[in-house]
């Protein structure tokens, strides 16, 4: 546990800093490694950039990032999606600064080059000076390859890597389950919280598959719940598990009875949802629909971690973006049902506000812990982060994957295995 690593001259390659069960703390704080990660991980795989419901109509757009690179997700007049580099082909200014909205085109503010929603260069001022110099058809906004699964849009700079569905592999089953929380309506983005923390992106990556921290760091959140709900969140001694799904993905099932939101619809309505049930009944919803919506309002009982930047986290998307070796931006994207009853979507947003975002009852405590991990990573010249919890008690899941207890660090090891593979592959 105490081998000395020369940090000033990083002789040990990043991939060698990842062992099964521990990772070297320099992975959180070495700026050279961070630059390598952008190339070898974020520019080299499928990265989540948004949900289709965020660009619902022809002309809708949202801005996003692949690693550090700004991109635009747009929907053209034929309703096709495009992912475009947010960079004018002339002198390189961004052509879209809005967070999201509707537009007919993207026009560079500097010299007025205008691009269509599919990225094609349509018009530019004083075109005669370009006669015989450029061909407009050769200067569209650069397009990224993109594919969607169940409304989740991923993009990549790599034309030659495996199809998204192959990359997601064993995670697809869990995305299908996650999308049941629309309560019978298509899942829709309702809004998002944004915050940052002074720490490395991998600290957040680990956190979403870390049940071990929950009752400790989130004690004040649990104390704010009624007894029945607090019991639900007391899951460390339950039957939950963490399963390694391959390609860096993993699922952490905390509340097994909330894996399938379309099952067990006969359960009595919990006290904290009695007002929602009453509102739905008042609207004339059938008892069957009331039960389905109330169960969906809970959110699922699991966190699905998709390497490298998104988690389907119980009821919302948690999206991370690496800004620098010691700064990470996070989006907590609230979800509801498209066309679902107003009372249902309201309840979903109120639950999201309760725990998530920079003013939630949970996130600030996570942020405090992550900030301390980053600060602690600078202590000493040597040190390892332990991710070996549960390694001695692994078993095979029903789907044939490696699984451990709910509070095991099986998911982190899966993510770091993928990280190591990607960092090492590029060094050959």
């Amino acid at each position: 546990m105490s081998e000395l690593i020369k940090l000033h001259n990083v002789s040990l390659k990043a991939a060698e800093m990842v062992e099964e069960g521990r990772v070297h703390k320099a992975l959180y704080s070495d700026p050279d490694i961070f630059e390598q990660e952008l190339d070898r991980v974020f520019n080299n795989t499928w990265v989540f950039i948004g949900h289709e419901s965020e660009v619902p109509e022809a002309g809708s757009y949202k801005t996003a990032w692949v690693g550090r690179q700004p991109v635009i997700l747009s929907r053209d007049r034929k309703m096709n999606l495009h992912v475009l580099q947010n960079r004018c082909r002339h002198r390189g200014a961004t052509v879209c600064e809005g967070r999201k909205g509707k537009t007919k085109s993207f026009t560079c503010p500097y010299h007025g080059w205008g691009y269509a929603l599919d990225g094609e260069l349509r018009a530019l001022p004083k075109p005669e000076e370009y006669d015989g110099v450029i061909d407009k058809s050769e200067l569209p906004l650069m397009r990224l390859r993109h594919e969607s699964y169940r409304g989740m849009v991923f993009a990549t700079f790599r034309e030659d890597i495996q199809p998204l569905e192959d990359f997601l592999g064993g995670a697809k089953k869990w995305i299908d389950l996650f999308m049941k929380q629309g309560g019978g309506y298509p899942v829709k983005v309702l809004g998002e919280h944004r915050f940052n923390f002074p720490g490395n992106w991998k600290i957040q990556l680990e956190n979403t598959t870390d049940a071990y921290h929950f009752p400790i760091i989130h004690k004040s959140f649990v104390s704010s719940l009624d007894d029945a709900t607090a019991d639900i969140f007391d899951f460390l001694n339950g039957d939950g598990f963490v399963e390694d799904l391959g390609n860096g993905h993993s699922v952490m099932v905390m509340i097994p009875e909330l894996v399938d939101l379309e099952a067990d619809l006969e359960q009595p309505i919990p006290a904290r949802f009695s007002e929602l049930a009453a509102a739905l009944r008042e609207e004339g919803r059938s008892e069957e629909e009331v039960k389905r919506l109330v169960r969906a309002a809970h959110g699922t009982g699991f966190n699905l971690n998709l390497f490298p930047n998104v988690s389907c986290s119980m009821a919302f998307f948690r999206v991370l973006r690496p800004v620098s070796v010691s700064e990470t931006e996070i989006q907590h994207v609230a979800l509801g049902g498209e066309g679902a009853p107003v009372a249902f979507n309201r309840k979903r947003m109120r639950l999201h506000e309760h725990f998530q975002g920079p003013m939630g009852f949970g996130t600030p405590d996570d942020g405090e812990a992550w900030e301390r991990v980053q600060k602690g990573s600078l202590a000493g010249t040597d040190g390892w982060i332990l991710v070996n919890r549960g390694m001695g008690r692994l078993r095979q899941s029903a789907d044939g994957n490696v699984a451990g207890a709910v509070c095991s660090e099986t998911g982190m090891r899966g993510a770091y295995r993928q990280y190591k593979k990607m960092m090492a592959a590029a060094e050959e």
Partner: protein
Amino acid sequence: MKTNTELLSKVAGFIWYEADLLDHKEYQHWLQLWSADGLYIVPTDINETDYLNTLNLALDDADMRRMRVARLESGESVSADAAGNTVRMVSRIRLLEAGEELVIARCAMTLNELRHGRLITYPADVEYQLRPVGDGFLIERKVIRLLHAEGFLRTVSFIF
């Protein structure tokens, strides 16, 4: 422009009193300033007005306010225990409505927080809906429109 200086002075006194309670973490007294139906709102979009049907950073009714205060005072929250002090400046107070049942005031606030030795500043536009009661007011609604609401904020373990 005619200004009701007596009312403005009374409103300013109330808003400064609230600001002082919050900076000095006298949260139990702060809870007493509210009407039972009052809402404490920090929107994610400063142009939004349909708070119930949109996602907010905070939308606290009486229960959530009580729980938020309980969390900050519980000793169970590491971020609340690590929180430094805040100093807020409130100025530019203007009365938008001066009814007998409801007074609406808008003001500018700059909140400074010292957190782990770093100074963080939150400029905001704040709107109060106040119900005159006896000599003072009860807060019916307080909307804090953070200038940086749409950006990436630091986490918050105090009350705006």
